[in-house]
């Protein structure tokens, strides 16, 4: 009897020890540089000055959102320390700032750095250092390349996916179309054009009758519109940024050209493009979207939009709700918070990347209904769905299904 008791005691003691050690192993906190029991350091690089300074508001929105999260207790008890630097959209400066963040400030990862050239400049560095370069703020297609660059991930739908969707639509609705394309002469414009051509595949050569490019330094693109009209095209694919898009819409009405106007999502804002160009000139324009447009009255009573407007009113009153960048910053910050929540107490760089590649049907409520964020170890393109929309009256009307246009880098 005493022997058995002793045995039992030993066994149970052993079990208790085992369970305790097992339990502590499960709950063990793992950290890389930049994370502690109380803090998660996140780096960010934005063009607060220079030619692209209009996008700097994305960084300010994110800072406001993380502050709101911190005020509510942080993520799993840890506060976010958001360190955001200015690179003036100059790649050499981006390299300097990225190195400062990684080597001097010792952040856990860099989040949502903006622009294709700046991100290209640090692409190799981040991957060599094995520091996540998460949710970069550019639509270039090359960020979705988990095999060669396992530490870099985009967020928004890439440009090629979007123009493939237009190509699909044109092939179905207007197979005999004569397409005139106007694009901005940079990486963004060329990426779109490439997607369009690949989407049209064999018919690209015969369908695209005119291609014109413009420089951002041109004061007006009117002459390009006149030239494209003279080619007799009946579809106009408009790959321009907001200022030029508004000019194009106006000029097309002025010269009484009546093509099917396809406008890229970059310039689909009602507030900054359509309204200045005139509602009457914009009827029937087709575009694609993945985010809700604040200026669109159909979301007036939408709970997700209300939450966003509450955030603006309470935590970020200086933000202009008509600025599309604000809603982008809000959405991407929410995605980041979700990834960090999934990480739990394992805040290593490898796990951050693993969780970022493990988003399943995640939604931030500023996305259009039906659009979800999905990633996997082989799919580093978080948002790849868009829905077509047609401008009618004073707002966009969504039509058709949510379409996926996955393209790998």
């Amino acid at each position: 009897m005493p022997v058995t008791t002793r045995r039992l005691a030993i066994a149970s003691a052993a079990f208790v020890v085992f369970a305790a050690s097992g339990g502590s192993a499960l709950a063990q906190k793992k950290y890389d540089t930049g994370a502690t029991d109380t803090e998660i350091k996140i780096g960010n690089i934005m063009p607060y000055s220079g030619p692209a300074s209009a996008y700097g508001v994305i960084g300010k929105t994110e800072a406001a959102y993380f502050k709101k999260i911190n005020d509510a207790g942080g993520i799993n008890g840890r506060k976010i320390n958001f360190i955001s630097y200015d690179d003036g959209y100059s790649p050499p400066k981006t390299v300097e700032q990225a190195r400062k963040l990684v080597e001097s400030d010792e952040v856990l990862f860099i989040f949502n750095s903006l622009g294709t050239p700046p991100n290209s400049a640090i692409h190799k560095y981040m991957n060599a250092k094995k520091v996540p370069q998460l949710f970069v703020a550019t639509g270039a297609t090359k960020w979705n390349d988990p095999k060669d660059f396992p530490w870099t991930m985009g967020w928004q739908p890439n440009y090629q996916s979007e123009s493939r969707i237009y190509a699909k639509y044109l092939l179905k609705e207007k197979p005999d179309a004569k397409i005139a394309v106007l694009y901005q002469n940079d990486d963004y414009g060329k990426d779109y054009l490439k997607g369009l051509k690949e989407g049209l595949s064999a018919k690209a050569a015969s369908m695209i009758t005119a291609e014109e490019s413009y420089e951002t330094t041109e004061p007006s693109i009117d002459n390009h519109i006149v030239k494209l009209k003279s080619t007799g095209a009946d579809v106009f694919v408009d790959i321009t940024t907001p200022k030029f898009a508004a000019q194009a819409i106006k000029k097309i009405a002025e010269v009484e050209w009546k093509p099917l106007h396809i406008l890229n999502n970059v310039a689909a804002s009602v507030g900054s493009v359509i309204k200045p160009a005139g509602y009457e000139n914009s009827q029937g324009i087709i575009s694609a979207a993945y985010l809700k447009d604040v200026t669109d009255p159909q979301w007036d009573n939408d709970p997700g939009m209300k939450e966003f407007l509450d955030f603006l009113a309470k935590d970020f009153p200086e933000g202009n709700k008509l600025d599309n960048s604000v809603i982008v910053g809000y959405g991407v910050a929410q995605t980041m918070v979700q990834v960090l929540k999934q990480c739990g107490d394992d805040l290593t760089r490898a796990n951050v990347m693993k969780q970022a590649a493990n988003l399943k049907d995640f939604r931030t409520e500023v996305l259009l209904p039906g659009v979800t964020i999905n990633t996997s170890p082989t799919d580093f393109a978080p948002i790849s769905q868009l829905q077509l929309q047609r401008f009618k009256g004073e707002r966009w009307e969504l039509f058709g299904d949510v379409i996926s246009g996955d393209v790998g880098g």
Partner: protein
Amino acid sequence: MSAAIEDVVTESPGVIEAVPKRAMTLGTGTSLVMLGLLLLTPLFVKNFIIFQMTMLLIYGVAVLALNILTGGSGQFSLGQSAFYAVGAYTSAILMEHAGMNYALTLPIAGIICFAFGFLFGQPALRLSGVYLALATFALATAMPQLLKLGYFEQWTGGVQGLVVTKPDPPEAVQSMLSWLHLKMSQDMWLYYFTLVITIAIYIFSVNLLRSRSGRAFMAIRDNEIAASAMGVDVALYKTLAFGVSAGITGVAGGLGAITVQFVAPDSYTITLAISLFLGMVVGGVGWLPGSIVGSAFIIFVPNIAEGISKGLSGAVFGVLLFLVIFLVPHGARQVAIVGQQLIGRFRKN
């Protein structure tokens, strides 16, 4: 301490004042202290700081090149970013497409930029002062767009730019250090590599300005008519100054490409040209050692300004710049002279 900068700055009515050539350099003592600092600091700091110091040297060389042109021969240029870009792209293309060793690409970048600058100097001869500044400004605005041209895209990578591989320290250096159980990082190697080139260029520039050609530059700067009356071939020396300046800028560009590991049209906009111009003015026009001070100003002051206020970093930078120009209009040179006078007074007492 240094006998070289004893000459007091003389006010002259011209835009660029006459700087006596002895006042263009540092004394031996000061030079050795500087050299010692540049040699030893990297051993004690993080890789990131070493990287910043490398950039400091590279921009220092580019500012020095502009200093030879403006301070030496009296010609303005707001187009240095274009030469910098040509140098950077030459190095990047030779390294990535031709597989050439990074060190060999630098003289080639220098020669190509020398030729480019010399040729550009020809039409620029007819212009002077603000008109020349505008002509070079045109060059700087045109360059990023030229780099984007579809025609060159297969080499330049167009708007996407080119990624450059960072060089490792050579085997010989590594094996030598391994005896001492040390290991040299890529950043540190690149720093010393840049330092050697910077010193070589500095010595070359100092000697150039002290030579017959240098005297010709300065004669043109001070009075073109008098210079030609003395038998100086004004046209030749003016274009030569452009060529030399562009060549040195090209080497700096090449080093910049290797250090940053990336070239793209957006890296070489007019902002860069203006920064270099700013660096020259802050360092002191015509005072070669000031180039490194000017370079420090354009690298670190924007960071300081950002630290003070994120939203108003541009305005803070403007205020700081205004203060510098208002308080010390002759830049670092003036500070050095005042410092020297103070030391002199101490010695007397």
